[in-house]
Structures are given as structure tokens and as C-alpha cells.
């Protein structure tokens, strides 16, 4: 299946007619053309209508979050924000419902979208909005003994709370037993086993409680939040450009894409267009990051399957890319290379030559690895048909990126909404057939090749010129201007003392990151810091499907599935 760009934008006439008085207003935010302000009573019906009506078909719940409006307006304190995406017609729509503090509840959308389960738990955890009808409304990022809701504006950022003992998760297992009784469960003696968080295949921060019959997983209860380090709250207390280092550490396998994704959102909000040279450099570093991310993901996944040699092949390549990144940004891993309106600095003189040299070596590393695994009996037995997911379910879970493509949809934000001149490049979107572990691994290998193609074309077409936009409100003037003119001096002073000037408004900008759709929903109230900086993390949605993928399979399969989802804890827990 493929998605065409020329699809028509949505006509909401029937939606508006159907829900008439429940719709309080219609507006837009930057990069989301339609946002309805609605009454909270009918919101689930509206979501259902938007999802199911043939001319609407907003099949994916991209994000669900809460905005604490305490400093923005009088009246109801919270706004619950739903963002929906139509992958077939390439349109986005938002719904927002005001919820008062004293009666902080809204109906749950768990029955409509599978990823609503975790999203609503997060909203409850962070903001204290109660989702009625949710089967297991329990904290998800913060620990069970936490008191209060940290993303409320009146929660002190420094107020840490100790946890005395890790959660045993048995209450969640009980809920699963009740809601989803399985034949065989309880008949014979089953075993409850804790996997992680300190476990070689769970990357130190993922934990699952599994109930086993023999080696078959009956129920899997994942627990996340072990690396919840307060990205959003920290972003709200830092200047716009100071947030960039925090974005490095979201998906730390591909920091540069996060840098790009964040500044793209802020630039959209400011109405700044990056220069052509800047965009080309961003494309090259994004694709290099994507390659690095896939190298680590596939390398680590193969290690978990027992194929250690591949890890050395792939990681060696990564080291070579590190050398380039280090010469470009000064850091191997945590790059912080972009700035609002441009880049920290232009590419080094030997940048293009070094990238060309890398392009010769990357296919060799991939080729060497594929020679070892592509027709390897063990690898095939461990991955083909393991952890299958259908396209409909993948969309309902909010899958994006390689995992969605592995389920059979050729969808890529770089093609669907070409940004940063991606429409100038000739590349293909690899996709799988059955959405199993094998497809997910192979889609990533092919994406490495496609990224090489993009980089190669970008190098050929790379324009000259400045890397920073001409925009005195966000870009520090160069030294001759700072010292030679009063405007330059004033601009320099303003930016250094007060940070970049971002107009009031809201934006949701999505970028195709290595793991899928990395979106930033940012609210500015014209202060020097973001009022809210929400990160829509692709692997939060991917990992929420883990029980669905792992249940019914063997423990060993669960390890293979987990690796193929590429769950990066920094991004998962933020």
C-alpha cells in the first residue's frame, strides 16, 4: 500500500453538523490545520466519528496530552488535547476540551485507540486528569508512592520523592486476569517471572512481569518510567535554546535528529525558514543519525539473538561515524548541534569529503552483516513470523516509522509532508509484508541504504551561503556587527540576556526520526522559556504494544521482539 501526496484535505461539514452544539469553536495551531474546541461530554463519540467516518478516517491517535492553563487564562484549568492523524489522506486534526480543576475527569478513549491506554495513564500521572472508564488508571512514569502531579504548574520542580520498594505489579496482572481470561491460564500451575529492569536484554530500564505456562508467555505486564527524568518540566525552566541539550538525551542513539526535530518545531512557531545550506546539512546529519540508530538497534537486537559478531561489524561503523560527528559538533554522542534558526556553526571544511568516505564504508558493514544473517537458519527461525502485528492494529497502537512500515504501509513523513527539501531527493520507502520481527530488522537495514542514497544526493546538491537565518530575534549577530553597530549590540544583548524571542502560540511539528514520528507540541506564552514542551515519543507507542506482541510466544521470542521495536528508554520515559 502506498500513500499519495495529492490527497485532498478534509471537509469537516458533516462532523460539525453532527455535533453542532458540542463544538465550541474551530481554530488552528501551527502545522495542525484544524483544531476543534469541544465540550468534554461528547468527546469519545467525536473521536469515534473522526476515526470511522469514511470521509474523515483519522485512524491514528498521534498524541494525547494535557495543558495546564493556569497562567494562560481564567476559568477551567486544564485542556485535554487529542491529536489525530489520517495516514491515508494526510491530514491532522486536534480536539481540545476544557476540564475544571475541581472536577478533573473526562471519558476514556481506551475502547477506540489502543495507545490511549498508556497516553491516558501518563496524563493522569503527570496532570491528575482522571479518565473515567479506564481499566487501569495507574501512574506510569512516576513511581507508585509519588504524591501529586509533577507537570502541574504549581508542583515544585525540585521536589523529589523517594520510593521505598519497587512495585510488584501483581495488581495489574489481576486486572488482566479479570478483563482478558485466557484458556489454559489457571488450569495448570503457571509461573510469574520478573524480567528486568536490570537485565541484559531490557537495556537497563525496561521491566516486564510475565506469567508463564512452561516457556509460553500468557500475560506480560510492562512497567516503564525507570528513566523518567523530567524532560518536559526541565524544558519549562530553560530557555528555548537551552532545551536542545535535553533533546539530545531523548533518543540518545540518534541525537542529531532530535536536535533537528525540536528546532523545526520552534522555527515553525516563529515563522522562521532555515537557509538552504542549513537544511541540507540538517538532512545529512539526520540521515547519518538514522543510520547510526539502525546500526545500534539491529546490532543490539542480533546480540540478544546470540549473534555477537554482527555487533562488532556494525558498531565499528558507528565508531567511524562518531569520528565525523565529533569533528562536526565536538561531541561523540550528545551533539546539541542545531540552534533555533540555524546551526551552532557551519560544517567543517573537510565535512563533505569525510561523509563521502563514510558512504563507501557503510554499505560494506551492512553487507558483511547481511551475509551472516540474511540466510542464517537460526536468525530466520528466531524472527520470521515472530511478533506479528497487522496493519490495522499497528495503526491503532500508534505505530510509526520502521515498525509501521514493516507492517506493510509505505508511510514516511519525509515523503508525506516533505520538509527540509526531502522532496528533492530520490529515495524509496522500504516496507514489510507481515509486520514480524524479521520485517522490522530488514526494513531498518534497507533504510540504511536509502539514507546513504539521500546523503549522496544531498552532497551533490549542497548549496553554499550562510547556515543561519537572517533573524535578529533568534540569531546572535556576528562579532563585527555586535561591536560595530548599535543594532547588533542590542540584539546580542537581548539574546544573551533574555533568550530568543518566540511569539505566543502553539505548534505541533512532526519529524521522521529513526524510530518513527517524533513530534513536539510546544506552547509559548512569549516568555523566554517554553510554557509547555511536549515530546511525542515514537517508542512510547511502540512499547505499549509489547504485551500484544509477546503474549502467546516464548520468552526467547519476547527478547527478539523487544529488540526489534527499538525501545530507547530516554525517549520512552522522557
Amino acid at each position, binding site marked *: 500500500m502506498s500513500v499519495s501526496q495529492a490527497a485532498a484535505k478534509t471537509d469537516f461539514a458533516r462532523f460539525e453538523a453532527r455535533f453542532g452544539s458540542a463544538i465550541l469553536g474551530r481554530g488552528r495551531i501551527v502545522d495542525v490545520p484544524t483544531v476543534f474546541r469541544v465540550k468534554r461530554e461528547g468527546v469519545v463519540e467525536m473521536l469515534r466519528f473522526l476515526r470511522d467516518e469514511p470521509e474523515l478516517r483519522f485512524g491514528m491517535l498521534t498524541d494525547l496530552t494535557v495543558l495546564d492553563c493556569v497562567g494562560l487564562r481564567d476559568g477551567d484549568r486544564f485542556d485535554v488535547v487529542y491529536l489525530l492523524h489520517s495516514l491515508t489522506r494526510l491530514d491532522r486534526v486536534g480536539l481540545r476540551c476544557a476540564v475544571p480543576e475541581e472536577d478533573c475527569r473526562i471519558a476514556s478513549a481506551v475502547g477506540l485507540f489502543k495507545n490511549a491506554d498508556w497516553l491516558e495513564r501518563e496524563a493522569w500521572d503527570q496532570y491528575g486528569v482522571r479518565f473515567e472508564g479506564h481499566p487501569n488508571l495507574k501512574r506510569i512514569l512516576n513511581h507508585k508512592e509519588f504524591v501529586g502531579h509533577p507537570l502541574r504548574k504549581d508542583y515544585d520542580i*525540585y521536589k*523529589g520523592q523517594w520510593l521505598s520498594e519497587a512495585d510488584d505489579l501483581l495488581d495489574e496482572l489481576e486486572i488482566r486476569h479479570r478483563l482478558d481470561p485466557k484458556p489454559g491460564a489457571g488450569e495448570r500451575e503457571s509461573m510469574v517471572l520478573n524480567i528486568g529492569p536490570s537485565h541484559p536484554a531490557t537495556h537497563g530500564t525496561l521491566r516486564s512481569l510475565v506469567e508463564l505456562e512452561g516457556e509460553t508467555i500468557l500475560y506480560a505486564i510492562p512497567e516503564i518510567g525507570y528513566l523518567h527524568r523530567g524532560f518536559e518540566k526541565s524544558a519549562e525552566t530553560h530557555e528555548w535554546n537551552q532545551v536542545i541539550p535535553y533533546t539530545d538525551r531523548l533518543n540518545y542513539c540518534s541525537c542529531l535528529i532530535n536536535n533537528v526535530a525540536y528546532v523545526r518545531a520552534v522555527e515553525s512557531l516563529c515563522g522562521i525558514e532555515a537557509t538552504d545550506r542549513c537544511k541540507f546539512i540538517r538532512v545529512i546529519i539526520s540521515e547519518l543519525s538514522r543510520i547510526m540508530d539502525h546500526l545500534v538497534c539491529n546490532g543490539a537486537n542480533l546480540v540478544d539473538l546470540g549473534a555477537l559478531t554482527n555487533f562488532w561489524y556494525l558498531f565499528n561503523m558507528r565508531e567511524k561515524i562518531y569520528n565525523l560527528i565529533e569533528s562536526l559538533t565536538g561531541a561523540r554522542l550528545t551533539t546539541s548541534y542545531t540552534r533555533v534558526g540555524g546551526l551552532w556553526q557551519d560544517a567543517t571544511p573537510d565535512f563533505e569529503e569525510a561523509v563521502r568516505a563514510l558512504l563507501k564504508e557503510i554499505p560494506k558493514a551492512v553487507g558483511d552483516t547481511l551475509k551472516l544473517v540474511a540466510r542464517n537458519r537460526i536468525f530466520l527461525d528466531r524472527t520470521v513470523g515472530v511478533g506479528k502485528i497487522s496493519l490495522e492494529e499497528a495503526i491503532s497502537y500508534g505505530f510509526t516509522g520502521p515498525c509501521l512500515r514493516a507492517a506493510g504501509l509505505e508511510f514516511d513523513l519525509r515523503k508525506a509532508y516533505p520538509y527540509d527539501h526531502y522532496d528533492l531527493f530520490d529515495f524509496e520507502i522500504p516496507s514489510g509484508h507481515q509486520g514480524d520481527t524479521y520485517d522490522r530488522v530488514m526494513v531498518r537495514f534497507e533504510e540504511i541504504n536509502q539514507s546513504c542514497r539521500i546523503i549522496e544526493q544531498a552532497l551533490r546538491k549542497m548549496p553554499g551561503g550562510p547556515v543561519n537565518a537572517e533573524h535578529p530575534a533568534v540569531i546572535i549577530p556576528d562579532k563585527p556587527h555586535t561591536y560595530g553597530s548599535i543594532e547588533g549590540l542590542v540584539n546580542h544583548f537581548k539574546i544573551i540576556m533574555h533568550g530568543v524571542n518566540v511569539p505566543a502560540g502553539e505548534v505541533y511539528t512532526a519529524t521522521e526520526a529513526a524510530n518513527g514520528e517524533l513530534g513536539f507540541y510546544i506552547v509559548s506564552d512569549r516568555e523566554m522559556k517554553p510554557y509547555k514542551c511536549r515530546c511525542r515519543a515514537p517508542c512510547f507507542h511502540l512499547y505499549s504494544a509489547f504485551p500484544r506482541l509477546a503474549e502467546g510466544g516464548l520468552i526467547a521470542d519476547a527478547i527478539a521482539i523487544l529488540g526489534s521495536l527499538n525501545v530507547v528508554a530516554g525517549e520512552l520515559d522522557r
Partner: protein
Amino acid sequence: MGVDEGRTAAGVQAGKSLARGAHVMSPVGEGVYLTRLDAVINWARKNSMWPLPFGTACCAIEFMGILSSVFDLSRFGAEVVRFSPRQSDLLIISGTVTYKQAPILRLIYDQMCEPKWVIAMGVCASSGGFYDNYCTLQGIDKVIPVDYYVAGCPPRPEAVMQALLDLQKRVESNPAPR
């Protein structure tokens, strides 16, 4: 080992070196050396440390780099990473530890057998780093003792190797095995 030194003047040299707590061995006959048991044990320990990589975040990715071919921690005898605390004697915390993670870190540390050493890799493990907020533990030394702090966000691989080498010196000069 300073074997040559021991060969030349067995008794005197051996006495001197034991007083220093060093690992020089002395021959009593062809192929036989005398030393203190703890010197031998320390020597063996320092050259075969088994790290438990308590990797939680970005630093864990760098730790993968330290283990892989270019930097190759196995040159210093510490490449056998074990995720079982019962099998390891060096706990390397690479990454941020949150309040939610803290009880687990303590449990892992308690499960390790003595003697054991702890390296806090990176500023998050050392002090919380720039995550000064409601969910991040402000340094793992609030939960477990730490032998060596490595600065950096993340530290360069060389810095971690330096930490290991320095720690080896401490292990070697332990007066008696802990």
C-alpha cells in the same frame, strides 16, 4: 610482575616488596615463587574484573563503544560483562538513576559479593547532572557507596578506561583482600 627483580636477591627483595605490599614474587627454586596470598589474589582480581554494566541511559551507549573493537576494554581484563550481580565485582553505573530506579540499584549492589567496587560513569550517576528535578536522584552515592566518579556527559571512553586503571591500582594495593 617484577619477576627479574625477585630472581636476583631472593630473601632481601622478597622482604622489601612484601613490606611495600607489592606483588613481587621470589624464587625458592626453579619455577617456584614465594609471596603473600593476598598479593596474588589482588593481582588476579585487578586483572580480571567482571563488570556489571548497570546501564540506564546515554552513557550505556558509550559503554557499548568502550567494549567494542576500537576501545576494547578487554585489553585491561574487564570485558566479561555480567548482568548477574552474583558473578561480578565491579558495578559500573552508566546513566541516570531515578528515584524509581533507586531501590533496584540498591538491591543489585546488595546482591554483589564482597569485595566489590563501584564506578559512577558520567555526571548523572555522579550528581544527577543537568537533570535537577523531581524524578532524578541527585547522585547515586545517596544510595550506594561509590569508589570512582567519572565526569562527562557522557564521558569519553578514555576517561572510563582511566577510571578502570586507577581502580586497578587501588585493588592491587589493598592491604588485605576485602
